[in-house]
């Protein structure tokens, strides 16, 4: 008789299953052991900053860090919104963004005991703020000149305020009488300045219906190179010219100020405010845990 019928081998299967479970269990234990070394989340500081080409970062680096190197654990984001979003998502995070990006999803810290808001920047008491620029190739003429004038006027500065930035002082009303503009106006550059230019362009077009305006982002560097090559009429920038960009005949116009807010996650109970020195130590990587702040 031959044996072609199957025999049950439950025992061995059971053994195999048990050893698989043991393996899984052991590897889970090992894995979670690894994870434990990470420490408590929310207590470890997660440094968030902007990418190395950002105007905001350059300003922060020069002004707050005194050009000392950031901690190597700084995570880079390539826009203010990304910094804000990451801080909102990450319990232990700290980041720096333009004032306009502060909302209920994040908590802005007091710096040297001064709240981050427009009034305090205007009053000069809030310590971290910088200028916003428009660049043209040679002195501005035609539509570009009028647009910059408009931005610097009371009307334009209202938009600056609306978008959460800090306006210029002592402005005059914009005067359209007798002017007509036509043709095209191309504006490109800094994502920080973009919302202002975007809104201003909309109302500017109402004043000059014959004009076609294009506003595009791309970053300060892109804007500056676009205007120096003549592919844009105006370059927006949240930083001044770098050495490699000088000597190309660019003229700068200041159109407002930006306060830099230091933001943390709303769940963060360790800090309500920081001194500039503490802020620097955090970004240097000298303080790496929120608990160490009080020491």
């Amino acid at each position, binding site marked *: 008789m031959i044996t072609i019928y199957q025999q049950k*081998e439950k025992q*061995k*299967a059971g*053994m*195999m299953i048990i*050893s698989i479970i*043991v*393996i899984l269990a*052991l590897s889970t234990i*090992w894995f979670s*052991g*690894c*994870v434990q070394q*990470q420490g408590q*989340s929310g207590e470890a*500081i*997660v440094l968030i*900053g902007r*990418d*190395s*080409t950002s105007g905001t*970062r350059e300003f922060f*680096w020069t002004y707050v860090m005194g*050009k000392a*190197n*950031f901690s*190597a*654990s700084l*995570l*880079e*984001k*390539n*826009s203010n*919104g*990304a910094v*804000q979003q*990451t801080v*909102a*998502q*990450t319990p*232990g995070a700290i980041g720096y963004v333009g004032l306009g990006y502060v909302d209920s*999803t994040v908590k802005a810290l007091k710096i040297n005991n001064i709240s981050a808001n427009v009034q305090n920047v205007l009053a000069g008491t809030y310590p971290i703020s910088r200028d916003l620029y428009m660049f043209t190739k040679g002195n501005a003429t035609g539509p570009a000149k009028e647009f910059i004038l408009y931005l610097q006027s009371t009307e334009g500065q209202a938009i600056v305020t609306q978008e959460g930035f800090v306006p210029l002082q002592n402005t005059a009303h914009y005067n359209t009488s007798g002017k007509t503009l036509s043709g095209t106006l191309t504006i490109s550059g800094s*994502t920080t300045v*973009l*919302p202002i230019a975007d809104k201003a362009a909309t109302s500017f077009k109402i004043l000059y219906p014959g004009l076609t305006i*294009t*506003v*595009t*982002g*791309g*970053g300060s*560097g*892109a804007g*500056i190179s*676009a205007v120096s*090559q003549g*592919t844009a009429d105006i370059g927006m920038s949240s930083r001044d010219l*770098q050495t*490699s*960009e000088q000597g190309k005949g660019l003229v700068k116009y200041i159109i407002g100020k930006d306060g830099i807010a230091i933001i943390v996650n709303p769940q963060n109970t360790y800090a309500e405010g920081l001194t500039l020195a503490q802020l620097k130590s955090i970004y240097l990587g000298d303080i790496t845990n929120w608990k160490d702040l009080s020491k």
Partner: protein
Amino acid sequence: MVKIFHLSWKGSLLKEKGMKTLFFLSAISAIIVIFSIIFFLFRDAYPIFQKEGVVDFLIGMRWYPTGQPPLYGAFPLIVDTLLVTLGAMLIAIPLSIGSAIFIAELATPRMKAIIKPAIELLAGIPSVVFGFFGLIVLVTWLQITFDVPTGESWLAGSILLGIMAIPTITSVAEDAISSVPREYKEGSLAVGATRWQTISKIVVPSAISGITAAIILGIGRAIGETMAVMMVCGNPTYGLIPNPITNVFAPIKTLTATLGIEMGEVATGSDHYSALFGLALILLIITLIVNILATLILGRLKEKQRSGSKRLPIISFELAKKIKQSLYLFIGIVIIIILLMAVGIIPVICILIIIALMYYSLKKISIKIKQKIAFSIISLSIIIVIIFLGIILAYIVTNGVGALSWEFLTTGPSNLGRSGGIFPSIIGTLYLVAGAIAISLPLGVGAAIFLHEYTKEGIVTKIIRAGADLLNGTPSIVFGLFGFAFFVLYLKFGFSLLAGQITLAFMILPTIIRTTEEALKSVPQSLREGSYALGATKWQTIRKVVLPPAAPGILTGAILGIGRAAGETAPILFTAVVFSNFIPSSLLQPVNALPYHLFTLATSIPGSKENQAGTALVLLLLVIGIYLIAILLRNRFRKNMKW
């Protein structure tokens, strides 16, 4: 009479020559493109190599181009790129091969009819959609589940890249496994091997070159992927090698992410700008090395399988076996030492005991139980894949469907995209894709016709094919950089529709060449001979006899190209797109595009959650719809292929 005959004969000869030249020109376009890419990368990277020295650039430990002094060390970026790829492959390879085996060998015909095209469809999901999901869901999930400070990490990048690579690897590997001759399987079964023994000892080894090709394809994609890694890996500022090297929760910064982040704002012509081109060059060289290795490995595998290797072996069989064994032993010891250093002695002992136990119990266990275990693991892998991809799709659909409305599709964005619609991006994507296909289709089809109809296999076709392969392996962000250097700056197109269209066209050119060639190959030689026998010239034969039956195949390739172009972000990032409510009226104006719109909303515009998901859904539907058409068309075409 004679004169007329003579004249028309001369005319057609001229035409023949003209057509041939035209096809030849399109064929060498692939080479011209790849050479200009290398040339422009090198030209713009040269200053930094000169200033810093190639070696210092490669092994420098810190990347801090805006520091004082600026530091240009690409080493951590290179290591991170390799690490994230390694992690992705550890996830993707077992799951993909398991799934491929399942589809090819275990699935019932009905299951196969559903799963196979579904997996192919998923290969088309744009990477920015994965990135969007990773940023919103995966990163937060990792942070909470593992209680780590931040979920933006190597692990997040690897998981996401792994999932992205699965459909591609699975479908290519499945093709390879399915095409193992049935005779092999039957031969094995006939000597009393079980199904699992047949699969593991005959089918998979016979398909090994195809499976390897699939894996290499996956590795190439993972190394070159930009958008997804850029969105979830954290990007520590100087580039950071995880410490210890096994710390999967460390944030990392890859070559592609560095390019994606820094290229947009860098001052043109600065050292930093040049250094970024240096990175792109490194990236290109890494993918080049992967490609060359692939060709070598595949060549060897195929040779080993096909020929009877008539050559006398240099070393005897026994000796070769001994060398192999000691090599394995050596590798094993090295791995153990690395593990010892990385995780300490106790876990290593545990692992060794487990392996020994498994080995022992597997030996003891009966063949049938082994088969059961193997089949359960294989079925588990496809279930995991389906769950992974299902979660991603479900998330995007459930979140995005709320935003979807007629208005959303037909109006422009307002309040920086937080409200309003995505009409300009839809139009922008259509413009970009239309231009790209209008440029690449004639070039690609021409090149394929030249390769397949006008030349014999030889040195020329080899070079052209190598060029197309290289182009195919080039990471999309490298196309972006090239487009920026060449079209935007050198040709002074500026950020423009035209620059984006040409860049995308170059990217999809190899796809079109390849699919067209396949379509041409499927036209039987006898048809051509029949036409020549009637006195038709070459071009007449191609136009009247060869192209009509090949048309559906060519169309499929074109549609695949369209799908890819519609979903890509990196190539247009620095050449064409701007985040605005703007529809271009000339080729020299910039555009907005769906993937870029989604990218910007997801990374830069807080409070735009609803529109993010809506945009992701529209993009997903668009691209998947395009792929669906291609797959349906191809399946019909395959059925009609029987002559």
